[in-house]
C-alpha cells in the first residue's frame, strides 16, 4: 500500500545519496517540485536517469546532486542547449559528470526489461552508429531461433523512481493520462517510488486511455498541486513555455544560476 506523505518527507524516504534514480515524464508531467525538493535536501552522488534530461536535470546537475547521467537526449525542448549540463561535461562544474548515453529506443527498452524482471532487452537499434563504442551497455546478441544479430541493452534497475500524475485516491491508487511516456515502466523498474499528484480524490473515475498504478505497486504519494510546473499536467495546467525560455538566460552563466539556486534553497546573500 502506498503511503501518503508531505513532499519533503516522501522525498527523504525515497531518494537517498548515491541512488540510481529516475525522474520521468516525457515533456508532460515532469516532477519538477520533487526535483527541487531533492536539491533542497542536498542529495549527492546521484546517478540520474532520464530519457530527456531537460530543465529539471539541468537544475539538479548545476546544484551538484549528480555524479552520473544515464540518458538519450539532453536539451531544453524547443529552446536549445542545457547550459549547466554542458558546463558539467565540458568543464566539470560544479562537479565532473559521467555519461552513459543511449538512444530513446534503447532507454525505453531498458525500462521495459527492468519492469518485466528481465536482465536485458532486445531491439533493432544502434546499428552503424558510434554509440556502442562509447557505451559498454550496448552489445550485439544473436537470435537463437533465426541467427539474426540484434542489439541487447541491460535492464535499467532503479533504486528510486519519481513521477508526477494527475490524481490519486486516498488509498494511493494513481491515475495519469495524456502523454504517459515511460512513467509506468520507471515506477515498476524501481525499488522505491514516489508519485506526486495534482489532486487526491475520493474515487478515481475511469478515464479512457489512462494509466493506473495500483497502490500496492507504488511506494509513496504526495499531494503537490502544480508539481509539474513549468511542465504541465494534462487537464490541470498548460506548459509554461516562457519559463523554459527564461531558463536559457538564467542557466547560461554560473552566477545567475547560483542566484537562482540560492533563491530555491532559501540561502540569503
Amino acid at each position: 500500500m502506498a503511503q501518503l506523505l508531505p513532499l519533503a518527507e516522501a522525498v527523504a524516504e525515497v531518494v537517498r545519496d548515491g541512488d540510481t534514480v529516475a525522474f520521468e515524464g516525457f515533456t508532460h508531467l515532469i516532477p519538477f517540485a520533487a526535483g527541487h525538493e531533492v536539491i533542497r535536501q542536498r542529495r549527492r552522488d546521484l546517478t540520474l536517469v532520464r530519457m530527456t534530461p531537460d530543465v529539471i536535470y539541468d537544475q539538479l546537475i548545476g546544484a551538484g546532486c549528480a555524479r552520473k547521467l544515464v540518458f538519450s537526449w539532453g536539451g531544453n525542448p524547443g529552446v536549445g542547449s542545457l547550459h549547466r549540463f554542458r558546463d558539467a561535461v565540458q568543464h566539470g562544474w560544479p562537479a565532473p559528470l559521467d555519461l552513459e548515453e543511449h538512444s530513446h529506443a534503447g532507454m525505453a527498452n531498458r525500462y521495459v526489461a527492468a519492469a518485466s524482471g528481465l536482465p536485458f532487452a532486445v531491439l533493432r537499434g544502434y546499428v552503424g552508429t558510434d554509440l556502442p563504442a562509447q557505451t559498454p551497455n550496448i552489445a550485439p546478441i544473436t537470435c537463437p531461433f533465426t541467427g539474426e544479430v540484434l542489439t541487447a541493452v541491460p535492464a535499467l534497475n532503479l533504486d528510486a523512481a519519481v513521477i508526477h500524475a494527475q490524481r490519486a485516491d486516498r488509498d494511493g491508487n494513481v491515475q495519469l493520462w495524456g502523454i504517459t511516456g515511460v512513467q509506468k515502466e520507471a515506477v515498476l523498474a524501481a525499488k522505491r517510488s514516489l508519485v506526486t499528484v495534482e489532486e487526491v480524490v475520493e474515487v478515481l473515475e475511469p478515464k479512457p486511455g489512462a494509466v493506473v498504478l495500483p497502490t500496492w505497486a507504488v511506494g509513496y504519494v504526495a499531494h503537490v498541486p502544480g508539481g509539474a510546473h513549468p511542465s504541465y499536467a494534462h487537464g490541470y495546467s498548460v506548459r509554461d513555455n516562457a519559463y523554459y525560455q527564461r531558463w536559457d538566460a538564467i542557466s547560461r552563466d554560473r552566477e545567475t544560476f547560483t542566484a537562482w539556486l540560492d533563491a530555491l534553497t532559501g540561502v540569503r546573500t
Partner: protein
Amino acid sequence: MNYTSDEMMTVAAARALRDGAVCFVGIGLPSTAANLARRTHAPSLVLVYESGTIGAKPTSLPLSIGDGILADTADAVVSVPEVFNYWLQPGRIDVGFLSAAQLDRFGNINTTVIGADYRNPSVRLPGAGGAPEIAASCGEVIVVVRQSRRAFVDRVDFVTSLGYGRGRGDRERLGLRRGGPSRIITDLGVLQPEPETCEFVLTHLHPGVTVEQALASTGWALRVSPDLARTAPPTAEELSVLRALEATKGAA
C-alpha cells in the same frame, strides 16, 4: 511575394511529403513542414510524434514534442516504449524527418559531440534521442538542415545516426532492412544520393541561389548533378498557410 530562405526550406520539406504517408515528426522545422503539408497538398498525412501521439492533428504548432495539443488531437496516445517498438521498429513509418549538427556526403548524422574526443568534447550536443532508430527503420529519411561548412563536413566527429556509412552497400551489410536518407533539404537547395555511390550530390537550387554559393557552403567537394534543377518558389498559398501556422506556435 518575398520570403526568407528558411521559409523556402520549410516549403521544400513540406512538398517532399506525399499525401497519405505516415511521417515520424521531430520538433522544430520538421513539425512545421509536416503541418504545412497537411494543410496544403497532403491532408491525409499521418503525423506520429515520439511522445507517443499517433495521428496527431494539431490545430496550432506545438513548441515541444509533448504539447497537450498533440494528445488532444491524436488518433491514439501510446507509451514511449510502444511508439518505438510497435510502430517504428517493424517499419510501419514511411518517412522520418531528422536534423543534424554535422553531416557528411553519405548522409551520416552527428548530434552528439563536436570534437574528436567523445569524453572531452569541444561542444556537447543534445545526443541521439530517437534519431538512430528513425534513421534505421523508416522507409526513407529526409534531413532538413541549414547548409554551411560547419555543418556539411568531410567526416562527422561522431555517427549518431547512420546514413549510407562509407557508401553503397553499407546499410545492407549491417543488416538494415529499410531506407536511408532520400534527400537533404537546405536553405540553399536539395541534395540527393547518387544511386551508384549513395554520395549526396546537389540536385536542386532554390530560387536566387548559385552553384558557387552551395559549393562554398559545403565542407566536402560537393558534386553537382547533371540534371540540376531549380526549386519552384513558394506559392502564395504555401506562404500564407505557413505564416498563419507560425503565428499559432505554442498557442494551445
